[in-house]
């Protein structure tokens, strides 16, 4: 097998062209995951009755579901039931009008919510209970304590795990090609279906992903230094 540089280059350009789709597939679920994940983590750490149990079960069980299978099921259900659902809700949108990238975003978001909530929960638990008490003792309400004391400390503690999840999300986003969403891998192999240079296509996709994750990890390093600025380590 010969490595064809021209085909590699063409695949590379195609992969880049669909890079924005990967960005959407990563950052929308990330935003949803951070918001809902924090809410879930707080509900569980502060033991909101009933909800905390239910969320705990959901997160633990759902983390066992491989994203590929979940995606296949959502896609099948989406194609079959979306029109009924839209009709039921009196929405005029039809399955045909919905870009199926949203099915991918939905699946990735659920995964992100679960894993991010676990990361944040871990960070919250690592904060000393005395911090809450200190907040209450100076007359802050529970919400104020969480917002002003707990969350600012939680963020730097959660960042390393969060970055791992972001990198995981970037890589997981490639599975959506299974339902026909064109992201980097599917994009890079588009020219391959004409030239049959699939190997070059996959290598091109790998290069793009690799560069992207290295960049994210570099940004994470900078971010970590920045958020850790106020954390004094007596041993330093």
């Amino acid at each position: 097998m010969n490595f064809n540089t021209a085909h590699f280059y063409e695949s590379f350009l195609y992969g880049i062209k669909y890079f924005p789709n990967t960005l959407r597939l990563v950052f929308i679920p990330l935003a949803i995951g951070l918001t809902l994940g924090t809410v879930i983590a707080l509900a569980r750490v502060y033991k909101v009755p009933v909800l905390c149990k239910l969320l705990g079960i959901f997160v633990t069980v759902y983390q066992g579901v491989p994203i590929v299978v979940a995606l296949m099921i959502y896609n099948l259900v989406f194609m079959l039931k979306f029109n009924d659902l839209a009709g039921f809700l009196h929405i005029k949108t039809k399955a045909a009008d919905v870009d199926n990238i949203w099915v991918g975003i939905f699946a990735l978001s659920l995964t992100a919510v679960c894993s991010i909530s676990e990361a944040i929960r871990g960070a919250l638990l690592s904060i000393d209970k005395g911090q809450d008490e200190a907040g209450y003792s100076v007359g802050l309400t529970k919400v104020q304590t969480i917002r002003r004391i707990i969350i600012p400390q939680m963020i730097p503690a959660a960042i390393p795990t969060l970055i791992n999840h972001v990198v995981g999300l970037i890589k997981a986003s490639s599975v959506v090609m299974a339902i026909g969403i064109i992201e980097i891998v599917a994009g890079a192999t588009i020219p391959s279906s004409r030239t049959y240079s699939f190997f070059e296509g996959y290598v091109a996709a790998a290069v793009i992903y690799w560069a992207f994750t290295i960049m994210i990890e570099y940004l994470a390093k900078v971010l970590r230094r920045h958020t850790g600025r106020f954390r004094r380590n007596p041993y330093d």
Partner: protein
Amino acid sequence: MMNQWIKKIVIKAVLTALGAAMLTGCGKKTAAADTGVTKVVVGTGNAYAPYCYLDEKGDLAGYEYEVLKAVDELLPQYEFEYQTSDFANVLISLDAGKIDLAAHQYEWNKERDDKYLFGKEPYTTYVTYLAVTGDRTDIKSLDDLKGRKVKSSTGSNSVYILENYNKDHPDNPIKIDYVDNSTDEETVTGLVNGVWDATILTKRDTEKLNQNYGGGRDVLKVTGEPVQSSSTYFVFAKDNTRLQEAVDGAVKQLKESGKLAQISKDVIGGDYTESE
């Protein structure tokens, strides 16, 4: 010390792993060499009923397999061994030298011909049409699909047709959805619910889908003139003319004896070896 201790273990482990893998690999080869029979690895798909799919027991079944079995019987100098994979990976495997013969209802097209060696003896006709839901009347030709969504899969001939069409009509291209290794159920569901406006199918595949998912109705139909009339061929590596000639000869024999038509009737449900 620790250094050497760990090194030893790692080296031993790697050697055993490699050794085990080599042994399993070599075992097969020597068996073939003893009898003077050349082993031919056939690559085919695993999700295209009734041509190549895994049956209820998980074994390879379908028209491609039955035809190749008959071909193998006629060629004492070769012994066929089958390797299934995802559709898009069959031709890559041929390119990478992992298989000698690719069988997946391959139609001839120029790009493929540049890279691979096609058999000269077709073994099924393959006339493709646009397939839409039973109640649609607005789509008759590729021109009606401008700006609409069409389901296709990476590496297929329908992608080739659609992309060529788009190259000639860049102003309002057909939106191609590359859905790899999808199931029939997904194809029907997507078309019925309007996720895709059309796809490219043969008449017999459309009938098969109606039979399996229609519940007595024609949920899908082919429309308009054929998109392409061609036949399917076995595909070989560029320089493997010896195997190609041998297989072609056997296919020809099967045609003359009526065996090929019989297999087609038995497996696909009609004689599709010469005409639709």
